[in-house]
């Protein structure tokens, strides 16, 4: 008698435990589903508008009833007057992105080498300058920056955006490089010195190769920052010749009667390189973030 109650209660608790686990799993699945919908809806909306024909955009349908790649054809063949120089502007975006990337890596590694490896006594000044720049919002500096770029004679020149964005990308680079550099043993530098290497040789032959993972992380960060930036591109580049894709894309908003499907097709093509880059280097990016980004 007592044995059977014990057995059934054990069965009961086992069942209870199972139900609880299934309940938990179901709740997780539901949350996961909601998260997927939340993340994908605006992306889906982009494709929905881009795949519609010009008239069907306003139909309010939840899916493209007669999907067409017409909008993508127009963008790729530059068949609309806002898009006349699309591929040229795409190239501009690449030039800006790559230049910002290389300059950031160059200036960032040099500065962090002085701070971390050569132990310049005034190094803390550099660290503080970088930290301060990192926490000043770029949009707050836009107005005076616009003025001084005109003073420097760089308006409507890609170099103005390149220099401004390098300024905003370098602090993060110095921060990450300084953190990562601490994992490289100082003895390597010391033994190279005994062998008679000068600081430049140590920088090129020892420091840079060992910093490779951090270089990838920061390079990706700088490239994405430059590609995705809008405000500085818009303020500093206003001629069709000097524009980047971001500015060309926002031009569609100048009129209330723009072909929104062309705009969304442009937006999708503009989004592809950064998304590919991001997923390609996600491992490094995550490592970079945990390395020091905001680790408390």
């Amino acid at each position, binding site marked *: 008698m007592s044995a059977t109650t014990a057995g059934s209660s054990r069965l009961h608790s086992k069942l209870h435990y199972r139900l609880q686990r299934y309940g938990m799993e179901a709740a997780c699945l539901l949350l996961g589903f909601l998260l997927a919908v939340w993340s994908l809806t605006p992306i889906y909306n982009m494709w929905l508008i881009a795949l519609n024909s010009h008239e069907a955009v306003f139909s309010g349908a939840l899916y493209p009833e007669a999907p067409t790649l017409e909008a993508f054809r127009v963008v790729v063949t530059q068949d609309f007057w806002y898009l006349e120089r699309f591929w040229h502007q795409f190239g501009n975006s690449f030039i800006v992105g790559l230049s910002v990337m290389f300059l950031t890596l160059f200036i960032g590694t040099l500065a962090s080498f002085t701070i971390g490896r050569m132990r310049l006594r005034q190094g803390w000044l550099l660290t503080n300058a970088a930290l301060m720049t990192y926490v000043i919002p770029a949009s707050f500096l836009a107005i005076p920056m616009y003025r001084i770029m005109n003073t420097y004679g760089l308006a409507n020149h890609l170099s103005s955006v390149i220099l401004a964005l390098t300024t905003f990308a370098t602090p993060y680079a110095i921060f990450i490089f300084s953190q990562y550099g601490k994992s490289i043993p100082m003895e390597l530098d010391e033994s190279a010195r005994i062998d008679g290497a000068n*600081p430049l040789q140590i920088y090129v032959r020892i420091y840079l190769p060992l910093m490779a993972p951090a270089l990838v992380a920061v390079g990706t960060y700088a490239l994405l920052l430059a*590609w995705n930036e809008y405000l500085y591109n818009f303020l500093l580049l206003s001629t069709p010749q000097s524009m980047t894709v971001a500015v060309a894309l926002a031009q569609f*908003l100048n009129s209330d009667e723009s072909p929104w499907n062309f705009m*969304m097709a442009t937006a999708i093509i503009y989004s592809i390189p950064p998304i590919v880059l991001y997923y390609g280097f996600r491992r490094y990016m995550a490592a970079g*973030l945990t390395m020091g980004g*905001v*680790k*408390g």
Partner: protein
Amino acid sequence: MSSTQQAVAVGRFAGTRPATRAWFGGVHGADYVWAIAFALPYVAIFLAFVVYPIGFGIWMGSDAALYRELFSDPRYVTTVFNTLIYVGIGVNLKLFLAFLLSGFFIRKGWWIKALLVIFILPWATPALPAYMSIHWFLSGTWGLLNSALYELFNFDGPVYLNERWTGLGANIGAYIWKTLPFWTVILLAGRMSVPQELYEAASVDGASGLRRFAHITLPMMANLYLVCTLLDMVFALGDFNSTFFVSGGGPAMSTEVLATLGIRYAFTLGIPNQGVATVMSALPLLIPLVVLLMRKLRMSEGQL
């Protein structure tokens, strides 16, 4: 906290210890020239594109009359309120959600990993296309949201961007949509770096899941959470894109924030000094944030 300070202090003394000085402590001679040469590019960039614009901005916004005019402008007062709501709610709601979600994503299983890949997509998408899409998603007459509400529930949704509060809500929602994955990943990394032995030891001592959370996860994550909050407050304060592309500051400039109003004054209305004054008026909020953050970030550097 005290161990952090100790680490910083030790780091500082280590630099003056004679053994290390022999090679690196005091840089002198040819090395000093090298060190200066290596630092020069950053110093040049910093002087030309940070110090000069800041000085120029302070000069542009140094007239007290600008601020009298600004404070008497009702649009400015609205903007300050909007900015406080945007930063206060946008940042805190998002980080709280990110903290909860980091607990969800630390679970094991293939589909959690797959979901994380999808969940990251808003962060990988450039801000401009994302916010443009959200703007059209919310369009009153033919936007996807209202179409879906009508199809599914036969409900006629409002024209979201024609109303101050729904417009501001849309801007905040878009900002959360875009940046939630980033902070979730950061907090997830923070959770993963909590030593597993702590949890094991607590389990051996018979601590329940809730107590493990309260006595291990929370204290270990508190500092990271604070740094993230401060950092994102600075980012949110300077965020231009979400307001500019989702609501466009409208209707009738009722959803502007300081970052967009400054640009609007300077480039749409053609009064750059007023624009600088608008941005400068955020300094009482920005400076304490920056000082706190710099202290926190420097400490974390000493610790690592």
